[in-house]
C-alpha cells in the first residue's frame, strides 16, 4: 500500500512538472509570432498625441512619400481634436537612402527630446529629399543635426532594431507601401481624409 501511495504521488508530481514544461513551451512558441502588441505597443516607437489614449493609430510612413506628408496635418488635426488617441509613427523607409538618413536623424533627435520638432519639420516638406536638404530642414527647425547623428549612432542597436521590426511587420501584414494606417485592429492602406479617419477611430473605439 505504501509503495502504491508513493507511486501515485510520484506520478502526480511528474505529470505536474511535465505540464509546467508544456505550458512553458506553448507560451514561448507564441512569443515568436507577430502579436497585436508588437504592432501597437512597440517599446521603442515614438508616440504622438495622447500617450494614454484609448485608441491607437499606427502609421507606417516614409519621409519622402508625398501623400504621407500631405496627409499629415489632417491626421494630427483629427488626433488633436479627439484628444484620446495614441499616434505611433513607424518609419518604413521605402524611397531609398535619403529616407533612411531622415529616419535615423529624427530617431536620434528622439533621445534629445526633440522627436516632435524633427518629425514635424520633415513632414512639412513636399516630396523628394536629398541628404543635404534633410540636414538643412532639420537645422532650420533648430535641431543640432550633428548631435542627432551622434545620438542615433550611440543608440544604433535600438533604432536599427526598431526600423527592422517596422519593415518586418509591414511585410508580415502585407502592407504595399506608405502611408499605411493601423487603426485599432484594422489596416487602412493609403492616405485618409478627415471623415474616414474619424469613422475608423469610432469603429476602433466601439470594437475595443
Amino acid at each position: 500500500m505504501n509503495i502504491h501511495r508513493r507511486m501515485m504521488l510520484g506520478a502526480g508530481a511528474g505529470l505536474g512538472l511535465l505540464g509546467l514544461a508544456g505550458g512553458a513551451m506553448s507560451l514561448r512558441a507564441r512569443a515568436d509570432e507577430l502579436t497585436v502588441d508588437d504592432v501597437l505597443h512597440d517599446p521603442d516607437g515614438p508616440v504622438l498625441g495622447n500617450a494614454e489614449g484609448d485608441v491607437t493609430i499606427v502609421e507606417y510612413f516614409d519621409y519622402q512619400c508625398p501623400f504621407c506628408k500631405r496627409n499629415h496635418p489632417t491626421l494630427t488635426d483629427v488626433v488633436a481634436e479627439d484628444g484620446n488617441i495614441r499616434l505611433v509613427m513607424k518609419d518604413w523607409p521605402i524611397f531609398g537612402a535619403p529616407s533612411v538618413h531622415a529616419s535615423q536623424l529624427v530617431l536620434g533627435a528622439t533621445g534629445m527630446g526633440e522627436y516632435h520638432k524633427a518629425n514635424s519639420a520633415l513632414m512639412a516638406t513636399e516630396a523628394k529629399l536629398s541628404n543635404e536638404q534633410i540636414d538643412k530642414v532639420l537645422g532650420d527647425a533648430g535641431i543640432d543635426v550633428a548631435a542627432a547623428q551622434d545620438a542615433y549612432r550611440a543608440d544604433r542597436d535600438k533604432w536599427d532594431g526598431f526600423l527592422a521590426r517596422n519593415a518586418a511587420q509591414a511585410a508580415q501584414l502585407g502592407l504595399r507601401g506608405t502611408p499605411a494606417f493601423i487603426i485599432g485592429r484594422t489596416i487602412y492602406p493609403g492616405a485618409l481624409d478627415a471623415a474616414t479617419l474619424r469613422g475608423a477611430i469610432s469603429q476602433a473605439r466601439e470594437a475595443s
Partner: protein
Amino acid sequence: MMTRLFPIFRAGLLACLALVGLLAAAQAASQPLQPEDAFALNVTPSDDGSQTLSWQIADGYYLYRGKFVAETADGAAIPLDLPRGERHDDPYFGPEEIFRDDVAATLPAQNGPVTLTWQGCQQDGICYAPQMARLGTDGTVTRLSAGGEPSPEGAANAFSQADDAAWSPGGETQDSGPARGDLTLAQDDGLIEGLALRGGNALVILGFLGFGLLLAFTPCVLPMVPIVVGMLAGQGEPLTARRGLVLTGAYVLAMASAFGALGVVAAWSGANLQVALQSPWAIGVVAILFVALALSMFGLYELQMPSTLQRRLGQVAGRRGSVAGAAGLGFTSALIVGPCVTAPLAGALIYIAQTGDVLLGAVALFALGLGQGLPLLAVGAFGPRILPRSGIWMQRVKQAFGVIFLGFAVWLAGRVLPGPAMLALWAALLVATGVFLGALDRLDSGSPFRVRLSAALGMMLAFTGMVQGVGAALGADDPLRPLAPLASRNGPVSEAADLSFARVTTSDELDQALASAEGKPALVYVTADWCVTCRSIERGPLSDPTVNAALEDLAPIKIDVSDFNAEAQALMGRLAAAGPPTMVFLNAARSEASGSRLIGEVGSEDMLASIGKVRQ
C-alpha cells in the same frame, strides 16, 4: 416582456452595426490596387536581341522616372532610354518627372539576367514599396517582391533556365492573407487546430490531470473521500461495485464539468486582457500572486470561501442514492472549494487566463477535476480499503504545491527579469527545496529508506540549484543551459556553426552565392549580430551534428542584416523575410518548399524536417 427583450434587441443591433462597420472597413482597405495590377510590366523581345519593356499604368496611378533601375547580375547599371515624363512640380525642391497611363523603354541585348526596379504611387493614396522583377535572357519575367506582398505570378515561369537564379517565395506566406488583414495574427488559429498544432498543450492537459490527482491527496480532500461516497450511496444501502462506479462517475464528471466551465471563464477573460497581460507590470503582479498562493500552501495563512456561501451551496444537493443527485452534488462540490484546493485552483485559473486559450482552459480544468476525482472513482469501485492512510505526508503534498507555485512565479518573472536574475532565483528556489528535502540532514546507518531517498533527491535539487547560481554569476540567460557562457568561450561550438555558411550582405552577393551552388538546394538564413534568438539557434540546432550532416547536401547561405541598410531591407523584401532569424529553404530549382520556412526559435527536428523538404 418588452423590457427583457430590449437589451437582447439592442445587442443584436450593435452586432449588426459592428458587422457593417467591418465590411465598410474591408472595402476601404481594398482600395489601392495590388502593385502588379497598378503597374503591369510587359516584355517584348526584338530580333536584334534587345527587349522592349512596357508598363501599363492604371488610371490614377503614376511611376517615377527617377526610380527606374536596370542592373546586371553583378550590379552594373544598364542605361534605359526612358522618354521625358510629365513634370510633377514640387514647389519646394524642384521638379520631378512622372509617367501616367504607360511608359516603354528599350533594354539593349544582354548576356545574362537583368534585375529591374520601378516605383510609383496611387495619386493621393499610397506610394508603393519598390517593385522588382528579374528578366531572363529569353524574355521570361519573374517578379521579386520587395517590402510588399510576395508576388505569385512569377512562380509559373521562373524555372526556365538554371542560371536564371530566379526563384519565388513559397506559397505559405501568400496563404496567410486573411490573418494579416485583421491583425490578430497570433491568436486566430482555429481553436481545435491550434490545440492539435501546439504540441505543448497535450502536456499541459496531462499535467493538469496530474495536478488534480495530487490535489486529491491534500489533507482536506483525501479524508473526505469515503464520506462523499457514503453520501452518494445514501443510507443503509449496500453498494455494489457497478452501482458505486456509476454514482461516483456521475459525481466526478459533473465536478470536472464545473471545473471546465471555470476554465472557460478564466481563459475567456484572459483572452480579452491578452495585451494587458503581456505588460511587464501585469506579469510582475501575477508572479507575486503565485508567491502569495505558495505561502498559503506552506500554511502561513488559509484561503477559503466564506463559510455561509459554502453552507448554502452544500444544501443544494439532490436526492441521495440517485445518479442525478450525485451529479448535482458533484457540480456544486466544485464550487465549494476547501482551503487546500483554493490556492491551487486559483493558480490553475491564472495560468489558463495567461494562455487566453478557451478550449485549452476547458479541457485542462476538466482534466484537473477528473484527476481530483480518480481516488473517488477507485473508492466507488473497490471500497474505502483502496485508499492510503491519512498522515503527515499529506502536508508534504500541500507543500509540494507551494514549491511548484514558487517555480511558476520564477518562470513568469523570467519573462521580464534579466536572464542572470532569473537564474539566481532558480538557484535560490532549488537549493532551498533541496535543503527542505533533507539534502544537508545527517544520515546514519539506521536511516530509513524514505529519508535516504528524500535526501538524495534534495542533493540533486541543491546541486542543480548551485549550477544555476554559477550560471547566474557567469551571466547566462538560459536556465536550461546555465553554463553556456563557458562552453561558447572555449568550446568549438560556435566555430562549427559558422564553418560553412557563405556570408552575404547584398542582393548581388546572394545571386552569386545561389549561382555558385547551382543544382544544389540551399538554406538561406537571415541573421544579425543584434539578434539574440539567432545566437541560441547557432548554439542549438546549428551546432547539432545531425543537422550539420543533413546540411551537407545544401548550400548554406547566411544573410547578415546586422547593418540594417537599404540593401539589407531589399534582401529581406526579396525573401519576404520578417526579420532575423528566418530560414528559407530553396530546392535545386530555387523555389521555396511549401511549409518549410522557419521563423524565430527553432529546434533540430524543425530544421531536419525543412531540410528534408528541399533535398531530393
